[in-house]
């Protein structure tokens, strides 16, 4: 079990999110950087949908009441391991993407990311074992279910840890506090998102279609797990005298969609986005770039570049192949040790 000694806003339990319930209005939720979640789960030998902690701000202090193997990923929060009474630093600056062993009683301290608001992730061998709701352990903050009690974690919360995968623990504890020789690489973000023109692309005027990819966009202070608002030159619908270009009917929407409300300032829908929406959708971020949203904070300058449907499919399958390679090499390593 892990106990939260000191919490910070938006400390939540997340896995891959809820699937198969969108027709009932249930959002997906899940880890913002799903790629990192997948890598960490593979590295620890976990179930690939095991739940981790998403840390949005610091400082956070966590106490582990059992021997545990952990991996931190995402933004570097200068994580350090402290002994039980928090007087001695046992190890400073854990490297993202490597396994560390904690002994029962050890504490983990995570400070603020260099760029506040960028997310980090903490995964433990066995995963955080809260009760799944509608097939997922992800916290749905808007609707108040999932996670530990449908809310962000607070000081005093005790989070159960699942059984560690067989064979990983005993050997690792011997080398306590030393990173294992193998790790996974945290992908570095460049704030360039590849997009595909969307359903309503042709409803926009020429200037809007040109501006979308040629200009830089700044993230507004209005960014959260539901959506990220952008600031830049207004994107307008084409005005044709005969044809009414306004969309009246709502359509199904999903994370990654770029919607444009009447003020012309686009909104990128993120993990907690609702399931239907009425604003025209100019484009969408391709699935293999979605993880970058975890590291975009107010003021971040971003750029879009357009790819075709075929390219998007190719890039998605390339990412899948990379994950498969990691899966295979870790399997090989385990069979040898």
């Amino acid at each position: 079990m892990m106990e939260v000694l000191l919490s910070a806003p938006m400390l939540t339990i997340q896995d891959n999110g809820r699937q198969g319930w969108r027709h009932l209005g249930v959002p997906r939720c899940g880890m913002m950087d799903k790629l990192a979640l997948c890598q960490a789960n593979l590295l620890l030998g976990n179930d690939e949908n095991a739940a981790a902690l998403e840390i949005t701000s610091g400082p956070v202090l966590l106490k582990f009441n059992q021997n545990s193997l952990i991996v931190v990923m995402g933004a570097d929060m200068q994580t350090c391991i402290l002994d039980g009474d928090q007087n001695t630093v046992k190890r400073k600056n854990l490297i993202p993407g490597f396994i560390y062993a904690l002994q029962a009683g050890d504490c983990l301290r995570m400070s603020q990311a260099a760029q506040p608001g960028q997310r980090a992730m903490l995964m433990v061998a066995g995963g955080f074992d809260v009760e799944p709701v509608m097939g997922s352990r992800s916290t749905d903050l808007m609707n108040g279910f999932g996670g530990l009690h449908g809310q962000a974690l607070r000081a005093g919360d005790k989070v159960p840890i699942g059984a560690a995968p067989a064979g990983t623990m005993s050997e690792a504890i011997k080398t306590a506090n030393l990173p294992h020789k193998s790790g996974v690489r945290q992908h570095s973000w460049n704030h360039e998102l590849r997009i595909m023109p969307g359903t309503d692309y042709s409803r926009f005027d020429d200037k809007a279609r040109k501006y979308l990819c040629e200009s830089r966009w700044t993230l507004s202070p209005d960014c959260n797990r539901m959506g990220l608002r952008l600031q830049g030159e207004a994107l307008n619908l084409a005005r044709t005298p005969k044809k009414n270009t306004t969309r009246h009917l709502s359509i199904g929407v999903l994370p990654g969609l770029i919607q444009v409300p009447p003020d012309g300032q686009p909104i990128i829908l993120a993990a907690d986005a609702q399931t239907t929406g009425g604003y025209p959708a100019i484009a969408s971020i391709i699935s293999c770039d979605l993880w970058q949203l975890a590291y975009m904070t107010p003021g971040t300058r971003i750029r879009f570049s357009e790819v075709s449907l075929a390219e998007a499919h190719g890039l998605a399958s390339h990412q899948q192949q990379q994950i498969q390679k990691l899966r295979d090499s870790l399997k090989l390593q385990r069979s040898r040790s």
Partner: protein
Amino acid sequence: MNIPDPVISFVTENGILLEFAPPESISVDTELQQRLCHLSRLLREHSHTGPLLCDIVTAPGSLLLLLHDGRTARRLLRHSETLWHASAQKVPDQVTITIPVVYGGESGPDLEAAADLCGLSAQTLVEKHLDGEYLVQCLGFMPGFAYLAGLDPALHIPRKSSPSTRIPAGSVAIAGSHTGVYPSSTPGGWHVIGRTSLTLFDPRAAQPCLMQPGDRVRFVVQGGHLS
């Protein structure tokens, strides 16, 4: 009824939007919507299409199909076409849900104001609301929130100019051409005319939502008579 072929577009590389009604239209034909809800169920349950799909979102006049892998789109669309034709032949079993409501007073704080907007007495508004047989057009906005089509045109009024900060769970409300029931407490801009004690959304139940797309809904007065 003659339903034209849908406009098909990729929303993202794994998401296909089938639009059966032009997005400029204001409302959607009931028969079309019923067939869409039926198609969505067929797609989810059919052994050829179910495994390809991770989610289907029903919306007024459209379906959003989310695939595990966008490269199976062609296969999915081929099967969808067959199922779409099949959906015209077979009449689906429709579930009718009855919702008991306490109208007006503390349960429906906006009843009088909504009646004024309609130019009707509160009594007449309630009677017209009770007379309607509604279709669950789709769910959205929040888990379990059903957009119910079939509201008497005399009750079509715009949303409130400033939304209420907190509408309690179970509130029965009207706005535009829809009526609906708020499953959980939330801010909202619809006119609240009554309240039900039924649970509309329970994430821990085997069937989390009382209403599913395509269901029929009737309202009755709780206790049997209007006060």
